[in-house]
């Protein structure tokens, strides 16, 4: 008997994925300015959704306060560039590090809470962050601030190159987050995380340090979510406490994406992002009706396919695009 990770489908998906990455990396040459911005937004949401899925779908940490990190990242970018005078390329890695540093004490605080209490606690933390941001007079207090042209120019000279850079950063983040998620889930930590997803009692009884595993995931996700926040507001060029710490934009929509796509799978959030943007691009002009349609889709999926759209596809076909599961081959027929 032997064990393999890849199947024909994962190999095909891998090749298709590589071609897609090359094609998308070249987008600034084939896409118009508006399409490029839209694609950038799609990738930032894909990154946020994949990160929230690691948190809620695998580590069982159902946070409704991830806007805390999106806003933190955005505000840190503005503070580091406007107040400290750093160029954008230098500020971004600092935002990543600061996200991790902030996530540790927050985790120590809210890990004392379980289930619904954890969810509410995470939201409270995000509100605290919002109130603190509104007190920073140097960044416009409650009314916010804009990124001055001089700062924007540190990213690149010329508007076309700048738009391309913003897109590449968003695309790069989404690709890096997905690659990291695949690498983590294939490692021994991923085995632990998947076990925790399925059964915490059995996981700890079989030698898995649940608290430590969850802390690692929470901190890594916090850091990367902060970086995503920095990129979001680098694209928007303007920040305010209400926009930066918006529970609707950075958590409710993200939860929608993950739940309809398929929580606890890597493919789910990708599929969910595509569905979300397809709905938004075709219906956003309808105003309230668009939000009602989103709600109706969420209810329909939860009733008819609680495992999400990808869960439905996987149950019917057994398909898996990422080489995560392990197949035992050469099982003796008599055994």
């Amino acid at each position, binding site marked *: 008997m032997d064990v393999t990770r890849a199947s024909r489908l994962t190999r095909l998906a891998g090749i298709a994925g590589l071609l897609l990455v090359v094609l998308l990396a070249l987008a600034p040459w084939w896409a118009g300015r508006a399409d490029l911005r839209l694609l950038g937004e799609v990738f930032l949401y894909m990154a946020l959704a994949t990160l929230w899925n690691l948190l809620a779908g695998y580590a069982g940490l159902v946070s409704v306060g991830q806007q805390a990190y999106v806003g933190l990242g955005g505000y840190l970018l503005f503070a580091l560039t406007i107040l400290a005078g750093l160029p954008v390329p230098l500020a971004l890695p600092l935002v990543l590090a600061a996200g991790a540093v902030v996530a540790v004490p927050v985790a120590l605080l809210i890990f004392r809470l379980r289930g619904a209490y954890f969810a509410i606690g995470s939201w409270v933390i995000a509100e605290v962050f919002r109130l603190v941001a509104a007190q920073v007079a140097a960044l416009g207090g409650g009314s916010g601030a804009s990124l001055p042209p001089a700062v924007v120019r540190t990213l690149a000279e010329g508007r076309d190159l700048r738009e391309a850079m913003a897109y590449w950063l968003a695309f790069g983040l989404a690709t890096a987050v997905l690659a990291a998620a695949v690498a983590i889930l294939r490692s021994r930590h991923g085995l632990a995380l998947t076990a925790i997803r*399925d059964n915490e009692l059995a996981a700890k*009884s079989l030698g898995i*340090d649940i608290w430590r595993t969850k802390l690692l995931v929470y901190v890594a996700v916090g850091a990367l979510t902060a970086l995503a926040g920095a990129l979001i507001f680098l694209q928007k060029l303007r920040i305010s406490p209400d926009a930066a710490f918006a529970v609707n934009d950075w958590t409710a929509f993200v939860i929608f994406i993950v739940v309809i796509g398929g929580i606890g799978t890597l493919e789910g959030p990708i599929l969910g992002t595509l569905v979300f943007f397809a709905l938004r691009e075709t219906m956003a002009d309808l105003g309230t009706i668009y939000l009602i349609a989103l709600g109706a889709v969420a209810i329909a999926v939860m009733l008819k396919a609680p495992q999400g759209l990808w869960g439905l596809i996987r149950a019917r076909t057994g398909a898996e695009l990422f080489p995560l599961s392990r197949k035992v081959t050469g099982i003796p027929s008599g055994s």
Partner: protein
Amino acid sequence: MADILALDGVSKAYGAVVVAEDQGWRLAAGEALGVIGPNGAGKTSMFNLVTGTVRPDRGRIRLAGTDITDWPAARRCRAGIARSFQVPQPFGGMTVYENALVAAVHGAGLGPGAAERVCLDVLERTGLARRANQRAGGLPLLDRKRLELARALCARPRVLLLDEIAGGLTERECALLVGTIRDIRATGVAIVWIEHVVHALLAVVDRLIVIDFGRLIAEGEPAATMARREVREIYLGIEADG
């Protein structure tokens, strides 16, 4: 022989419900100890105390002389205590092989190659090889119980705690299980086995303890212990005459 596991004055109560009262017993290295008692006597609670999913109110627990009373469950598993659950607790979304792998990688601390070999070997021995690629959540009850045993074995324990794994088996399956557990014991693993299927238990264990209302009410050589009046009264629920 040196004691691999020792409990001294271990007590635990949930409000007025006492699940362990002043329990003290020893398990010698390589020994097989049987545990019997009526439903609700505190047998599974005793396993929870030993594995660390529940902390005692009083008393100490030692593994090979080291006090592990304050250790969390995961650390106790890595130090060599593994259990099966009476109500199976599979990782439902993972395959049978991956379930075993969790134990081999995290419980036994094995590297990828060694973990793979141990898992395939254990699945073969526990009759689960043909199920290796199935999702554990979809297994029938009997195979879920087999998986409990397989997973505990993949953690390569020094002390193996088995919680009612023979219930529901046919005579033939039960005989196979007894053979498997004897083989495990022959490799030097000490075993504590809670079981209602007494003939299976007596075919393996060297010694028996009887628990009722969280207390140890009898201890000794299996046949003699089973024959004792208080054991027959409490465990079998009959009025012993004479």
